[in-house]
């Protein structure tokens, strides 16, 4: 991990409310080009960790570096795309077209008092093309299915040309078929477009064959490394970690395909 550029670097992060530790001494980093799965049961501190990465919460101990810069010095948030779990529970009656939703992703890149030019419009269509949703650009977002909406939110995160995409439980509320298409899309973005991905999920079973790195979080970090090593991480350890038996699917890696 030391031989490539590190995009996000967390060092000894601890976060607690009173004596109640939510995160305990978390150290891990995301190298450029990786597809990291951050897994952990509900209440394991995943969302808190994401908030710390975005600077919305300050850890009591430790620090975050983004692109080698301390988080309080970092301002170029358009380099980081974000797809939230909330995207599924937005007000579906909101009268916005798919095009308008994706152009929201340019807001901070454009900056205050700036307007969209035709090159920005092209960027919106390119992002929609990438997720296969361009033909819906003038539909209202509320008229689409959950899986389609989530693709649109990926396009919104991609439109500012970020180096890394952070996805927080993106498949909650999306049906199984769309979920598998969705993971295929993520794999494609990672392989073909070189976008670094951090996928946060409680669903450990379905992601081990898609990601290149795994980080298991339950207050502290129980495992962090490449997926191959993770598969040797015994079932017993994992059951202790989740509190019940979990079966990790074994898959053939190393052929570059999913």
């Amino acid at each position, binding site marked *: 991990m030391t031989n490539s550029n590190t995009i996000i670097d967390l060092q000894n992060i601890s976060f607690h409310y009173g004596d109640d530790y939510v995160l305990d001494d978390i150290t891990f980093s995301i190298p450029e080009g990786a597809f990291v799965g951050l897994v952990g049961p509900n209440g394991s501190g995943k969302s808190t960790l994401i908030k710390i990465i*975005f600077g*919305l919460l300050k850890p009591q101990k430790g620090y975050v570096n983004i692109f080698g810069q301390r988080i309080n010095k970092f*301002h170029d*948030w*358009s380099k980081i795309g*974000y797809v*939230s779990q*909330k*995207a599924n529970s*937005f*007000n579906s*009656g*909101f*009268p*916005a*077209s798919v*095009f*308008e*939703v994706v*152009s*929201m*992703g*340019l*807001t*901070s890149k*454009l900056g*205050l*008092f700036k307007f*969209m030019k035709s090159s920005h419009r092209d960027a919106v269509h390119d992002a929609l093309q990438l997720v296969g949703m361009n033909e819906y650009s*003038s*539909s*209202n977002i509320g008229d689409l299915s959950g899986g389609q909406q989530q693709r649109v939110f990926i396009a919104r995160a991609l439109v500012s040309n970020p180096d890394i995409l952070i996805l927080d439980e993106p498949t909650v509320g999306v049906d199984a078929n769309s979920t598998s298409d969705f993971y295929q899309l993520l794999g494609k973005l990672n392989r073909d477009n070189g976008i670094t991905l951090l996928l946060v999920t409680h669903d450990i079973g379905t992601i081990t064959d898609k990601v290149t790195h795994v980080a298991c979080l339950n207050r502290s970090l129980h495992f962090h490394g490449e997926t191959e090593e993770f598969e040797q991480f015994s079932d017993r350890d994992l059951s202790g970690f989740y509190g019940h038996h979990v079966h990790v699917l074994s898959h053939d890696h190393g052929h570059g395909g999913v």
Partner: protein
Amino acid sequence: MIQALWQFEFLQNAFLAGVLIGIIAPLLGVFIVVRRQALIADALSHITLAGIAASLLIGKYSSFWQGINPVYMGMAFSAAGSLFIEQLRKVYKHFEELAIPITLSGGIGLGVVFLSLADGFNSDLFNYLFGSVIAISRSDLVAVAVITVVVLVVVTLLYKELFFLSFDEEHAVVSGIRGKSIQFIFILLVAFVIAVSMQIVGVLLVSALMTLPVAASIRIAKGFKQTIGLSILFGELAVLGGLVLAYYLDIAPGGTIVLLSALILVAVLLFKRLKQRKS
């Protein structure tokens, strides 16, 4: 009527103010409705009444103050009320909607007491509650025009931020948008627009101008910009149609405008249903 419009200044004032309010009230209304804060307009209009009453009361004791348009005091109260609502929302995190009735009843209570002290209970109160087109002066019109320019400029400049914040506030803040400052500017604009609009439709009806046209357009529009466009179109239809009808039928303009907005809403809902049946 056209002839009368040339002849009487008060009719010109009413129509010009109506045209401007027909633009800005639905424009801000779109953002309010999609954020599910439709009732905020009601609370602020009642606080505005308290401001106007306070101005009348001061005017009773100070002859200097009488030259100042009460609408400015109304704006100040409305702006203060908007900050008060934001504060109350933080205090009652789990009962955010409480901020509205607290502000609304507090405002009307204060307004009624001020008005009774200023001896304006009979004629003035009626005008403020239901609007009084005839009473719109040149200086009122100037206030409406200034507010219109401010609203149009600010909304144009902050459009993409306001849109993003309305759609998904948490995400917008994560993307580096300064949500708090922009929300503050927006709520001030709402307070100003309510203060100037209530002269036409009155305290009790002003929120209708911000919500009914939006309620209609949201059913048929494709996209956010079209929602804004249609809301303004419906708002103008209601204001101008209402003023004309009120003139010919000799009925209260404020009520006529609101009823016309409601009719437009019903027509749109019927249209939508027919369209759905066909397809």
